[in-house]
């Protein structure tokens, strides 16, 4: 069952322009865990995600996925295991129709056509997009694009789902639908987000990044309540954990 683990040990990354984005990050995410990665803009969240599927190589330290050290030889296996959902679905939907986009990954895995069709149908059904397979991606709404992007990754049947801001720019109902969808997955989930209420809904564990370091790592409910952690990292308590402004209005400061 070690397939679904993600481990980073003393991870450093410095961009060619000298920006130190990661400055020694260590964590271990185990099978079936759902982890939120939160932090201010520029804290290193996206850089960290790029390391989890080997798009960026660390300048120091190491990443292990499913027990395998990430290197040139293990890259195909790691990319097969880690499904990555990008922030902008337009980056992920590059084929002329939704169906072909979802089939893109399985076809590259060399699966037989019957199996590919089955996977595409299952993935589209899971995200509630059956019947929209023939649409070109630019004719989808924002919520549908997001769902299609998730389907493209599900069709690869990854062990680990990595998502960058999945709830960004969704209307409240689409956001709720997305949360329910993600909740139904049994994969190991790593979600970088500013949507702390979603983190509270989906992730039992939260990692707080601050200036390229892990500022806190622990149960989501404890961390998102702790103002001494949230404040310095430019974060705020999720709305749900703030008092009701009508029942218990904050004391007037004037």
């Amino acid at each position, binding site marked *: 069952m070690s397939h679904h683990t993600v481990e980073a040990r003393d991870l450093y990354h410095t961009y060619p322009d000298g920006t130190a984005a990661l400055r020694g990050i260590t964590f271990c995410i185990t099978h079936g865990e759902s982890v939120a990665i939160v932090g201010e803009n520029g804290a290193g969240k996206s850089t960290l995600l*790029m390391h989890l*599927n080997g*798009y960026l190589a660390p300048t120091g330290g190491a990443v292990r996925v499913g027990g395998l050290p990430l290197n040139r030889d293990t890259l*195909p296996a790691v*990319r*097969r295991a*880690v*499904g*990555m959902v*990008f922030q*902008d679905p*337009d*980056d*992920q939907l*590059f*084929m*002329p*129709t939704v*169906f*072909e986009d979802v*089939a*893109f*990954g399985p*076809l*590259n*895995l060399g699966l037989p*056509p019957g199996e*590919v*069709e089955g996977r*595409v149908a299952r993935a589209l059904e899971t995200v509630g997009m059956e019947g929209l397979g*023939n649409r*070109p*991606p*630019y*004719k989808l709404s924002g919520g549908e694009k997001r769902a299609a992007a998730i389907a*493209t*990754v599900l069709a*690869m049947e990854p062990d680990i789902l990595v998502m960058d801001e999945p709830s960004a720019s969704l209307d409240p109902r689409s956001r709720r639908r997305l949360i329910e969808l993600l909740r139904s997955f049994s994969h190991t989930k790593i979600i970088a987000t500013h949507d702390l209420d979603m983190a509270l809904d989906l992730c039992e564990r939260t990692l707080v990044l601050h200036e390229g370091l892990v500022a806190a790592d622990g149960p989501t409910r404890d961390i998102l309540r702790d103002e001494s952690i949230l404040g310095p990292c430019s974060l705020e308590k999720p709305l749900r954990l703030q008092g009701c402004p009508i029942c218990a209005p904050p004391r007037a400061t004037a």
Partner: protein
Amino acid sequence: MIESRFADIGWMDALSGRDTPLRRIDPRAKLLATLGFILAVLSFPKYEVAGLLPFFLYPVVLMSIGDVPVAFVLRRLAVVAPFAVFVGMFNPLLDRQVVAGVGPWVMTGGWLSFASILLRFALTVGATLVVVAGTGIHDVCRGLGALGVPAAFTAQVLFLYRYLFVLVDDGMRMARARALRSFGGRGMGMRVYGHMLGSLLLRTMGRAERIHLAMRCRGFDGQVRTLTRLRFGFADALFLLGWSTAFVLLRCFDLPRRVGGWILGAGT
């Protein structure tokens, strides 16, 4: 203006999404037949006009079996027409040799070749437009690939088509942002357009990198695979063979002259 043009591209896609007899023909048959058509049209001598007219049969038949509206084709033709006009517009000035005359009216070779150029342009570009609109850019690329065109080229066309929409969207947002803060004026003029183009280029490059990443994440190795297989059936062979024969016959036998001769012969 840009937005309406943009909607036009989308409409082309909508046209090709329907199930028409034209759509069902294998793209290779359509591409090869159209290539034969273009070669036949271009192989006529410089002053030919009458012999070209029967060739309108091909785009007209394709339009009807592909349910492609005439107005759509004419509009797109009008957009590219200036190129053809520019190519031929000096012919009437340079070639003043009289080739025919009725009373005080004379027809010079220049005007004749100019008319011939315009006809050839309308035929070839029109037929290509109808085939692309009735087939869909994706199937056209698949057909090209199956005919041996390098994958690097067909993939480029596919991506160009897919991201044209995103690029136009980006450009439109930027143009709107500029317009909203220039208060009807020229908004600092051309210099700003330079900056806008530059930042559009940088954005596009950033996006290209992210798309590449997304593709690599799903096992892309340089070849775009698709599930649908092309099948070259009896109907496709018939389409290709029928039209090729028609083009050869129309090219070798001057149909209008024969019909004219026949009518005149019958009249006397």
